[in-house]
C-alpha cells in the first residue's frame, strides 16, 4: 500500500518536469526553409532569411518574407533578424542555403561554421552558390505557387535524381572540404528573368570558389564522379545531323599506376545508352551507324573529360579526388608532395559507349 502511494507521488513530479524546457508550438514559430549568405560590408557576413508565411486562403496561399541583416557572425545576424520577426526562428527545417558568389570566392567555411556546429540543422541540407548575390535572388519574385525554399529544394533534388547535377549536400561538401586530396563542388544557380536556373557547377579550392563548369561540362563531370542512371547526351554527326542518347547506366572506375615516380591514372567509363532522337530524314539505324554514334559519344567524353582534368590541374584543384585515391593506394602518403606532383599527373580517360536500343522506331 505504502509503495503504491509513494509511486503515485512521482506522477506529479514527472508532469511538472515536462515544463522544464521551453515549448515550441508549430503555429508560434518560424521555420525558414531557405537562407542566403553574402559578403557584407567589411569583414561582415550578410544573412538573408526567407521565412514562409502561410495565409491559407485565396490565390497565393504562401508568401515569403525576406529579411536581411549583416554582422560578423551569422548567429548574431540571426539575432538581429529575430528582432524584426514576431515569432522565434527554428532552423530544423532549413533545406537550402545559398551563398553569394562574392562570399564564396573569399571562402565559405567561416560562414558555414554555425550550420555545421548546430545539430538541429540537417546535414542533408543543400548548399548552392548563386551567380550574383543570394539576397537579390531571395528577394526576387520567381515562385508564385510554392514557398521559395521548397521550390529550390525540389529543383536541386530533381536535377540530382534525373538530371546532370552530381549529388551534393552539406555533409558531402564537408567531406570533400575536410578530406585530404579532395576539393568540394556545389551547384551554381542563377536568376534569369524571374526564373531560377542551375547553370553548372561551382568548383572550390579548399573552401574558396575558384572556377565553374557549364552544364555541358557538368554532364561529363558527373560521369567521372559516380555511377549514373540519368542524363541525355547529344552527339553531332554532321552540321545538321544530331543524335540524342539517353544514358541508361554508366560506370566509372579509377586505376593508378606509378611509373618513374609520378602516378598515372586511367579512368575507365562504360556507358549503356539508348537512341532517343535523330535529326535526320528517314534514317534506318544500321550497325555501322550505331557504331559511329558510339565512337563519337565516347570521343566527346574523352575529349571533354581530359580537357576538364587539365583545367583542374592548372587551377590546382581536385574535385574528382585523385589525391584521395592515391592516398588509399600509397603507403605513408604525403599531401605536400602530392600537391607538387598534381599538376604533372598523367590522366587518360578510356570511355566506351554501348547503344542497346533505338526506342520504338527501328
Amino acid at each position: 500500500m505504502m509503495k503504491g502511494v509513494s509511486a503515485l507521488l512521482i506522477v506529479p513530479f514527472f508532469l511538472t518536469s515536462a515544463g522544464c524546457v521551453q515549448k515550441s508550438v508549430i503555429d508560434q514559430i518560424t521555420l525558414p526553409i531557405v537562407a542566403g549568405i553574402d559578403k557584407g560590408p567589411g569583414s561582415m557576413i550578410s544573412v538573408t532569411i526567407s521565412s514562409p508565411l502561410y495565409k491559407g486562403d485565396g490565390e497565393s496561399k504562401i508568401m515569403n518574407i525576406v529579411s536581411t541583416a549583416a554582422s560578423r557572425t551569422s548567429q548574431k545576424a540571426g539575432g538581429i533578424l529575430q528582432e524584426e520577426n514576431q515569432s522565434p526562428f527554428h532552423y530544423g527545417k532549413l533545406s537550402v542555403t545559398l551563398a553569394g558568389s562574392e562570399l564564396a570566392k573569399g571562402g565559405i567555411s567561416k560562414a558555414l561554421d554555425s550550420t555545421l556546429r548546430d545539430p538541429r540543422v540537417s546535414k542533408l541540407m543543400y548548399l548552392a552558390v548563386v551567380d550574383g548575390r543570394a539576397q537579390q535572388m531571395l528577394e526576387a519574385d520567381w515562385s508564385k505557387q510554392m514557398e521559395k525554399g521548397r521550390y529550390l529544394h525540389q529543383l536541386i533534388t530533381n536535377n540530382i535524381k534525373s538530371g546532370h547535377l552530381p549529388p551534393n549536400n552539406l555533409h558531402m561538401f564537408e567531406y570533400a572540404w575536410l578530406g585530404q586530396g579532395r576539393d568540394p563542388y556545389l551547384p551554381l544557380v542563377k536568376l534569369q528573368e524571374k526564373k531560377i536556373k542551375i547553370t553548372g557547377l561551382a568548383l572550390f579550392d579548399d573552401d574558396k570558389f575558384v572556377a565553374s563548369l557549364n552544364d555541358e561540362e557538368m554532364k561529363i563531370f558527373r560521369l567521372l564522379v559516380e555511377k549514373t542512371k540519368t542524363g541525355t547526351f547529344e552527339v553531332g554527326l554532321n552540321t545538321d545531323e544530331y543524335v540524342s542518347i539517353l544514358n541508361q547506366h554508366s560506370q566509372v572506375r579509377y586505376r593508378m599506376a606509378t611509373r618513374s615516380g609520378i602516378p598515372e591514372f586511367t579512368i575507365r567509363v562504360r556507358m549503356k545508352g539508348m537512341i532517343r532522337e535523330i535529326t535526320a530524314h528517314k534514317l534506318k539505324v544500321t550497325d555501322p551507324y550505331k557504331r559511329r554514334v558510339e565512337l563519337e559519344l565516347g570521343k566527346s567524353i574523352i575529349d571533354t573529360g581530359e580537357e576538364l582534368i587539365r583545367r583542374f590541374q592548372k587551377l590546382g584543384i581536385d574535385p574528382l579526388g585523385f589525391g584521395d585515391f592515391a592516398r588509399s593506394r600509397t603507403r605513408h602518403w604525403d599531401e605536400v608532395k602530392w600537391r607538387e606532383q598534381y599538376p604533372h599527373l598523367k590522366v587518360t580517360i578510356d570511355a566506351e559507349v554501348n547503344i542497346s536500343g533505338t526506342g520504338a522506331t527501328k
Partner: protein
Amino acid sequence: MAGKIGEKSLLSPFMAFFAAHCMQLGIGHLTFQSDVAKLVGQDSWIVVCLTGIMFHLVIWMMYRVLNKAQNDIISINQAFFGRWAGNVLNLFFLGYFLLFGGTTLRTFIYVVQVWLFPDVQTWILSLILLLLACYAVFGGLRTVIGVCLFSLIHYVLLPLHLELVPYLHFNNLLPAMDHSTSEMIRATQKMTFSFLGLEILMIYYPWFKQPQKSERWVHLANAATTLFYLIEIAASLTFFSKDQLVRVQWPTLALFQFFRLPYIERFEFIVVTFNLLRAVPILCLCLWSASRIAKTITRIRPSRTVPFFAALLAIFAILLPDYSAINQVHQWGNLMGNGLVYGYIPLMFVLSMIAKKVKPA
C-alpha cells in the same frame, strides 16, 4: 559467503551477457570512432579487433581468479591483502564504479543538452534518471538485469545504417596497417575506455547459479561488443573523411542524421532519447555494485547506501559544468580502467596462480 545468498535471488548464468554487454556499450560507444581515428585513421578497425582480443584475455584471467576462489573480488581482496589493505582496494573499486556511473550520467545528459534541449537543467535529468535507477536497484538484482535489456535497443537501430550505403567511400579503409606499432598501442589504450565495464562481473560473480558457467556468456558479450564496434567503426570511417571524423563530437549519433522518414524528418532525435534510456541500466549496475561493496566492508544496509550514492552521483553530475571537464573525467576513467584491466587483473591472476588455496576471509 556464497552460501548466504538465497537460492531465489540467484541469477541464471546467461544473464551475465546482459550485464557485461550493457556496461560495455556506455559513453565510449558514442565517441570512440573519433578518438581512435585521430591516432590511427583508417587502421582504427584493427585497433578495435585488437582491444576485443585483449579483453577476451582479461575475461579469461578474471575468471581463473574468481573460479579458484569461488567468491567475489571484495572477499578475494580481503583474503589476498588482509582485511585492511584489501578494504582500501575495495574502496578504490567503489570509487571506480561511482565514477563510471557519474560520467555516464553526465555525458548522456550533456548529449541531450547539446542535441535536443539546450535549456534543460542537469539536475532535472539526473533526478529523473537516478530515481528510476534507485527504483530498479530496490527491486533487487534480477530487476537490475531486466533493465539491462534496454541496452539492446541499439541493435534495433543498427539496420538503419543501410541508409548510408550510397555515401560510403570504401577507399577510406586503405591502405591498411599504415601506422607504427607505438601508435597502435596508444590507440588501443584509448579504445580500452569503450570496452570497460566487464569488471563489474567480479562483484556479481557469486550471484550466479553455477558461477563458472557465466564465463562463456561474458565472452559472448565481449564478442558481441567487438562486432558491434567493428560495424560502427567501419561505417564511420567510410562515411566521414578522416579529418571530418575527428571533428565530429559523437559520430554514432551523427550517422543517424542521414536517416529520414516521411513523418519523422530528424530521426536522430529519437536515437538520442533512446540513448538516454541506455544510461539507466549502467547507473543501476554501478549503484548496486557500490552498495554491495559498502555492505561487505561496513555492513551498512543497501537501502541506506543506494540513495546516498545516488545523491553523490547527482552532485558529481551537476558539478561538471562543461565538455572539457567531462573530457577530463573521461581521461581519469580511462586511466583507472587501463590500470584495472591491464595491471590489476593480470596481477591478481599471477597471485592466484601462486597462492595454493585462498583462505576464506
